[in-house]
């Protein structure tokens, strides 16, 4: 099973890398919708919520189809708000699937992220159930088929005192209570969704719940235009005394009908349980073997000054500040890592000026030792540029030793790079250092590029010292499929370095020696 999951994961990752690169080129990394898939689901959910409130005022449980038909006849508002409600729900399913695929492909579903994975699956399931109740509420052809098929499936479960399928045999008109229950579920489930989103992001600090404004409003505008130009269809009214014929069905919420209708409910449930178990157990299939599993960070309490920077920077709230067992004179607490929450991203290593925290082998001190060895082995000179390349993104260049004639030094995350390491490289005579990071909204570890930039250019704690020439340091943000961005940044850095070197050479000119003194002028 793990092998199947690994093969699926690799295939999906390759496809996504290509798709990311393509979308990056079209929209630029900040507005690449694939990087914002999770935030887009939340944004679309809000659109659905707002439009749903409007629709609620016009819906009658006593005459469901007639009220929806009346809404569709409102040319100015009802029609396009209903369309926007529907299309935003559809787009939410697409965004949720893309989000789940990304998490799966990038192997971000195991360990402390398991809770987010499982709640994410639940969110997707509840979203689909929510759509199911919404379509039944309309009580058109699609609603009838969804209701009857749902009843067929649920009636094999021993949970109802009476078979619910009886409601749809035509023995008596469907009671308003049925539609009221549907309406209640359709309103209550989104409230549950909101709570589940909170649990979903509960293990991350500063979750990005909304996409950039341009992307958000661009999407809303597109869906609104679609709703106006191509209003949401309304099929014929449900008729329990006629076999349902051909009608417009929403693939996003009714995709399962052609799969389940020809087979018995027992087989459907067996498939559902098996498929659900496979998805829920993805964290188990995709986690590395214990030998390859990165160890969580730890704190060297002798070095910890209690500055709280690692606590502030940790993207997973895995670090807490606690009282010291032997209090210091200044009364400052000490950082403590919760290994159950730590994903071993190493961002704390980059945030700790005294280099007292980080995963084993990747603390600031370990980084310095490794970089010294690198300098001794590769001997970078003034004409060289060293690329500190994130081994998950950064144009996928971290696997090679050289890229575009620059030396490559792979790092687990650009955000984990300690600025002292950069200083060490420059002091050792390296011409320049390029840090190749992931795009900020696609960091495997969250927030790595953000903290890196702040440490290099905005004096965030563990900052690059003033004595380091910042013009010799640059950052390139590039996804795994964008080596061209790293190349462009490298060209730019080399141009800057050439200018700097030329200026340095000029500064070294001994003006007194080269210039003839002007006769009669007093020095």
């Amino acid at each position, binding site marked *: 099973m793990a092998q199947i999951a690994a093969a699926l994961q690799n295939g999906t990752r390759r496809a996504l890398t290509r798709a990311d690169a393509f979308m990056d080129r079209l929209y630029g990394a900040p507005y690449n919708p694939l990087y914002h898939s999770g935030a887009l689901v939340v944004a679309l959910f809000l659109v659905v919520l707002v439009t749903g409130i409007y629709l609620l005022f016009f819906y009658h449980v006593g005459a469901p189809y007639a009220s929806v038909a009346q809404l569709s006849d409102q040319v100015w508002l009802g029609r396009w708000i209903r369309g926007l409600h529907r299309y935003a729900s*559809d787009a939410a399913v*697409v965004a949720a699937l893309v989000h789940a695929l990304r998490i799966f492909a990038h192997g971000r579903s195991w360990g402390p992220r398991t809770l987010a994975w499982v709640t994410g699956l639940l969110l997707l399931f509840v979203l689909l159930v929510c759509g199911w109740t919404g379509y039944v509420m309309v009580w058109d052809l699609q609603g009838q088929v969804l209701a009857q098929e749902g009843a067929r499936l649920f009636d094999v479960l021993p949970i109802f005192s009476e078979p619910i399928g009886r409601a749809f045999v035509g023995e008596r008109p469907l009671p308003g209570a049925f539609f009221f229950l549907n309406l209640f579920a359709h309103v209550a489930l989104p409230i549950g969704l909101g709570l589940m989103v909170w649990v979903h992001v509960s293990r991350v600090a500063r979750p990005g719940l909304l996409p950039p404004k341009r992307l958000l409003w661009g999407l809303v505008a*597109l869906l609104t235009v679609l709703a106006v130009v191509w209003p949401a269809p309304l099929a014929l009214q449900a008729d329990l*005394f006629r076999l349902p014929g051909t*009608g417009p069905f929403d*693939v996003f919420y009714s995709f399962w009908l052609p799969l389940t*209708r020809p087979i018995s409910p027992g087989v459907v449930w067996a498939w559902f349980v098996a498929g659900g178990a496979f998805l829920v157990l993805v964290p188990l299939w995709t986690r590395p073997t214990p030998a390859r599993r990165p160890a969580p960070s730890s704190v060297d309490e002798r070095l910890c000054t209690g500055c709280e920077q690692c606590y502030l920077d940790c993207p997973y709230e895995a670090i807490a500040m606690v009282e010291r067992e032997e209090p210091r004179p200044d009364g400052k607490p000490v950082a403590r890592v919760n290994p159950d929450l730590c994903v071993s991203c190493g961002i704390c290593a980059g945030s700790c000026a005294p280099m007292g925290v980080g995963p084993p082998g990747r603390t600031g001190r370990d980084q310095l030792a490794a970089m010294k060895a690198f300098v001794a082995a590769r001997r970078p000179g003034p004409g060289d540029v060293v690329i500190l390349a994130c081994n998950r993104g950064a144009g996928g260049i971290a696997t090679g030793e050289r890229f575009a004639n620059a030396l490559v030094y792979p790092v687990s995350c650009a955000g984990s790079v300690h600025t002292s390491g950069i200083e060490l490289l420059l002091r050792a005579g390296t011409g320049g250092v390029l840090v190749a990071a992931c795009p900020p909204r696609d960091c495997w570890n969250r927030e790595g590029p953000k903290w890196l930039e702040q440490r290099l250019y905005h004096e965030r704690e563990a900052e690059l010292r003033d004595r380091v020439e910042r013009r010799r340091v640059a950052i390139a943000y590039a996804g795994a499929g964008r080596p061209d961005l790293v190349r462009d940044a490298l060209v730019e850095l080399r141009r800057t370095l050439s200018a700097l070197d030329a200026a340095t050479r000029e500064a070294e000119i001994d003006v007194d020696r080269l210039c003839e003194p002007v006769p009669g002028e007093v020095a």
Partner: protein
Amino acid sequence: MKRATRRILGGVLAVTATAAVGALSRVPYAAEPSTYAVVRLAWRARGERVEECRRLTPAELERIPIHMRQAETCTGRILPYHLDARVDASPAVGEEVVPAGARRDRPLYVFRELTVTPGAHRLQVTFRISGTVARATPVHEQELDATPPALALDTVVTLASRDVLLVTYDGELRRLVVRRAVP
């Protein structure tokens, strides 16, 4: 790729993706592709309830708290029925309908759909207490509400393509009736 080209391609892709959402939101689907008609046998029947009573032994009474002791204990159940349906004299259904519930004391639910070709058909349905079950003492006060021991329907119906005809039990008339869409 030039900036203008990127913008145009980006716009085209965004519009195409949006249109794809619209198109996939209305894919024609034939839920029932064939043109047959359906005879739906669906009803809920109380069935005949019987109780089997016996006197408790002194030892059994001893085990029960004083305030809950009753000399007699009764176990009630609904009798199973046999459903038989024929379309144009050909057997279509022949099955035992057992009461719902773990203790078999819930009503009887019938739900069967028979596909038939459009046109006229003779429909014969019988629903009677299963002969294989020994009769116990009927509970007289509930007998009036119970479904009669035997129900029968023999009729000729004409069905158009995709029509659904419902055969159900009418509790007021206490017989099987045919219902169909109001034209």
